[in-house]
């Protein structure tokens, strides 16, 4: 029993971690049909804001799970194989939790940082302060070093499409033990500001 912000993408779409693309597609269509403002099934149970939050979570889950690379990366950071079955990592902090302290999962180190605003150079500074090489991040997140460099340098023309970028930022943030949602929001915002200038 977890609120939507702490649920895995699979829980959000009510599919198993081994679901096929077809099953995910079907679950997404069902979820879209269920969670919209005019749906009878949400009437009187959820507020408009709650429905919107669920809709956003559904979209995010669908976009990641339907992309083979993003899904693989997500699975690696959230699940482990126990007895031949995919199970959620018990030590993984809740998705989107704002209360967790940043920690580096693969070194066991803990590193407190000031909260954002997260930009490329902030992420780089945090990483360097932690003494982590970009290669190590790349190895853990399966994101290519070139993309990681583009993210840190904020080279907008070299950055992938927004949907992929969000996924990469999420994994990068998680590998540094940062709040992924906050990192995504602030990074995208700073990117938009940069484009305006």
């Amino acid at each position, binding site marked *: 029993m977890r609120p939507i912000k702490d649920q895995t993408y699979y829980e959000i779409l*009510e599919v198993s971690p081994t679901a096929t693309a077809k099953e995910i597609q079907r679950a997404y269509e069902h979820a879209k049909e*269920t969670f919209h403002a005019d749906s009878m*099934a949400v*009437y*009187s149970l959820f507020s408009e804001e*709650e429905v919107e939050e669920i809709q956003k979570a559904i979209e995010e889950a669908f976009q990641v799970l339907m992309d083979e690379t993003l899904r693989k990366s997500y699975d690696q950071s959230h699940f482990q194989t126990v007895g031949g079955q995919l199970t959620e990592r018990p030590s993984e902090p809740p998705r989107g939790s704002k209360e967790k302290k940043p920690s580096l999962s693969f070194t066991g180190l803990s590193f407190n940082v000031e909260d954002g605003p997260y930009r490329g150079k902030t992420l780089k500074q945090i990483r360097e302060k932690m003494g982590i090489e970009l290669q190590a991040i790349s190895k853990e997140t399966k994101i290519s070093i070139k993309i990681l460099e583009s993210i840190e340098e904020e080279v907008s023309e070299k950055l992938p499409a927004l949907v992929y970028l969000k996924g990469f930022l999420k994994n990068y943030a998680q590998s540094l033990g940062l709040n992924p949602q906050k990192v995504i929001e602030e990074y995208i915002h700073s990117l938009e500001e940069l484009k305006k200038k």
Partner: protein
Amino acid sequence: MGLICDEKQRGGFEWGGLFFARPPVCLQQAGDKPIPYLRGIRVGQVQNNNRKMIWTIGGGKGGSGKSFITANIGICLSKLGERVILIDADLGGANLHTFLGISPPVLSLSDFIKKRVFHLREVLIPTSTPNLQLLTGAQDLLNAADSKSVQKRKLIRSIQSLDSHTMLVDLGAGNSCSVLDFFLMSDGGIVVVTPEPTSIENTYRFLKSAFYRRLKQSVSSSSVKDLIDGAMDRKNEMGIQNPYDLIKAVRRVDEGDAQRMLEETKTFHPNLILNQVRSKKDIEIGFSIRSACLKYFGIHLHYLGYVVYDQDVSNSIRRRRPLVLENPKSRAAQCIMEIASKLVNRP
């Protein structure tokens, strides 16, 4: 109309003039355990003679078809060889007997509540269907719905001690404590909903009341009980909007109680029957309600099945003849049979 495809083409079997269909494909979803529909079961034979199941049928809204469904499922189960007792717990508005074509009985729950009879089995009435008995409600007891807590507990204990394979308890409308306590006494609570906003709204209110009452029964701290009472009001000052907020708030008061509430959540699995469906879209509302309950309450609601809107239902009620006996081949009767076959095979 194409809503129900030709069941004979999909398999199934005939029995006593009734045709038992396979489960509709649309009700099987990923994650559902496959149910062995009547596989290997013959008339007069049940899987386990020692088990006893109590199903309570509620749902908050009046007129959703609870009594109609209770009566007809009861007949189907008894035809499958189960010993069944139908209990009309719509205290103050009992009319389950009418759905069975029985005149208002002389003996009722009133006689038990008023201690005119010693044991509940003394007010059991036989019906024209073998293996099926009726325990009719207290029609003349206007304040029966608010019966004292001691009386209520005694009644619930007496119902639980009745000798039968299956008991179907038809509850009255509303969210009174009596209705909720009857709903929660069962092995499986069933809510009957029609695909209309009013019915769905009342059902959610009913489920929320039942869920919170069950949580309240599981905790020991009086301040946590007060917190749960307060959380029933969505405009509460504590800002508790949903069960997640509630458990979070309880955790600050008593970690043990918060843990107990989480455990209760895992075992609270009400069932859903969608009545009077007119289209495929209506059928799918059942799945959407299931998803909404999972997201809001964190509970797994089991979608037992649906009953199509059918003029034969109204005709059978007017004739005071149960649909599954009067017109077993009607579409609505087929749906009820499918639901009954699921109930008999539930672990």
